[in-house]
């Protein structure tokens, strides 16, 4: 029962991770870039929603507008920052996205200040009990919305014409160019969709965890997720996101108390600290050593 409760909480937050991770994988597939600034997009999406509701518009419109704004921001980032660096080595591009992360965090700091802010209520208060598991409406809606969006996006990618063009560009941009696909537009599109997803994820995350600059840290948590799932697999990102959410919940709820009980009984070490933060990274190293392409990726997917 307790375990089930943990699993539910884990799945709910995991689906938001999944949404954010999809964005990173999307960009990677299309342009071979790991977007370190994804966390900043998550954070900005939440802040935009907040700012728009402050102007008096309803939450639904606010979420919609903020997603649109984020899509624009994503495309803008691609055009202004990534486009000029087309020929640069991967490592330099990674660092430039890091610069974007730092810059956007600073902008948020300047506009909204360093403190936490009350996020507008998007979902009704209260909770329900299903089969003895207590879950708030907030959790339920955020979780299910995320997973629906993620699946919807996967479907879009797989079954629509634009999705096909995206996949072509991702697979081999020169060949795609040869058959008439406007690859640079596709890349911009990938960036805007990714930023839009991130913004949505940010808004949902803010309903669960509140609004603060700390939202951008989620970008760092995304990396173990992505490597686990495979840098080139969207489905892998979703699965890995859910897995990671559950893993963190179980670490916090079960592993840590067990370990601490053991340590306190036999040694002088009193606590294991933030185990749930380091476990994904330890897992990451393991995966990189044993199966670098992740669970769902395929070999040869390391773009150099």
């Amino acid at each position: 029962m307790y375990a089930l409760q943990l699993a539910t909480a884990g799945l709910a937050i995991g689906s938001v991770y999944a949404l954010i991770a999809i964005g990173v994988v999307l960009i990677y597939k299309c342009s071979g870039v790991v977007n370190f600034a994804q966390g900043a997009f998550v954070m900005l999406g939440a802040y935009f929603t907040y700012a728009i509701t402050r102007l008096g518009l309803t939450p639904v419109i606010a979420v919609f507008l903020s997603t649109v704004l984020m899509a624009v921001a994503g495309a803008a980032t691609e055009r202004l920052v990534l486009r000029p660096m087309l020929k640069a080595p991967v490592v330099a591009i990674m660092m430039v996205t890091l610069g974007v992360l730092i810059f956007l965090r600073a902008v948020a700091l300047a506009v909204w200040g360093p403190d936490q802010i009350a996020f507008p209520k998007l979902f009704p208060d209260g909770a329900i009990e299903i089969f003895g598991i207590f879950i708030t409406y907030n959790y339920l809606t955020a979780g299910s919305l995320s997973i629906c969006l993620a699946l919807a996006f996967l479907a879009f990618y797989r079954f629509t014409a634009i999705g096909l063009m995206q996949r072509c560009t991702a697979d081999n941009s020169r060949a795609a160019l040869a058959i008439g696909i406007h690859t640079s537009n596709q890349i911009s599109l990938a960036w805007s969709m990714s930023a839009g997803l991130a913004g949505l994820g940010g808004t949902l995350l803010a309903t669960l965890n509140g609004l603060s600059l700390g939202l951008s840290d989620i970008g760092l948590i995304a990396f173990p997720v992505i490597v686990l799932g495979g840098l080139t697999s969207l489905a892998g990102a979703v699965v890995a996101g859910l897995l990671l959410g559950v893993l963190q919940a179980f670490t916090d709820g079960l592993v840590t108390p067990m370990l601490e009980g053991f340590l306190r009984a036999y040694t002088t070490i009193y606590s294991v600290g933030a185990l749930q933060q380091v476990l994904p990274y330890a897992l990451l190293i393991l995966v990189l050593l044993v199966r670098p392409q992740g669970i769902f990726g395929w070999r040869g997917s390391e773009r150099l």
Partner: protein
Amino acid sequence: MSGTRLWITFLVAAAACVLALMLGRFGAYLMHAVVIASISALALNLLTGFCGQISFAQAALLGVGAYTAGNLGNAGWGILSIPVAGMASAASSALIGLPALRLRGLYFAIATLAAQFIFDYAFKILDPLTHGVSGLLIKPLTILGYVVQSDQAYAVIAIICLFVTWLTMVFIGETTLGRAFLVVRENEIVAKGMGIDVARTKLWAFVISGFFAGVAGALLAFTTRLASPEAFGLSLSIDYVAMIIVGGLGSLPGSLLGAAFVTLLPELIQRVGEALNIADILSAAREMAFGLLIIVFLIFEPRGLSALLHRLASRSQTNIALKTPQPTSERRRSELGLKLEKVE
């Protein structure tokens, strides 16, 4: 390195020491902060700029050096704490580097990111060695029984260490190993074809880079007198990556410039803000400037400050035709770092 060059470097170091002794405490503090950052930047530059292995784990290595030196210093090892701390960091660096032998580029970068977090966690957990989150209180450095208390003295010690680090880097650049680094950076397959043992070369880069990171960490330990996990987190690693980008990857003077720039920028902005009375958004301004610098430098001047200054200097001299053409065209920008900057 020619005799004259050696003399000039020595004189510059001596002049810096004299300056350090004349400054007040605040000035000396800034000075040794910059010098220590330079040592670490040079170390990272060896790894990333010369050998092409990007690393986000620099702060972890500094931490290892700091904790080692702190514990040894408290136990009375005196000046020996510094080189031993260097060795501890070198070992840790090799540990981080071992997986690198299998991974490349992006994956390796992410692996170093993971290593940074894991070391961070270790610092917090290994209470007996690190005092966990309370931090390790460190007694001042003792050299042959004499207790070093003043910031000025620490600045001089740091300058001496920087001098040694610099000479080592220049020396390495002129050996076979140094050239092997460059080839490995450009293209590992070609390196193998040339008969270079890529794995060993990379490992050497990690070990040497780690050693000097440890030295910098040791100096940090004695100057801040407290080693805590919070001081050696990811943001410090990112600071160092920024330093070598801004300074110019692969450039030795660039590392010093980058270190000075990134370390002094917050103070500069603080003073400007005080003068103009815009204290509110100062912190945000500092971070914005930082992020923008990274972006702008990478897009427009990947070779960093040193190349920028080079171009300004060559523009101010009329004999441009006599200088080797500086490659700035789109095509050549694909090679980050380019050739090893000649130390003149």
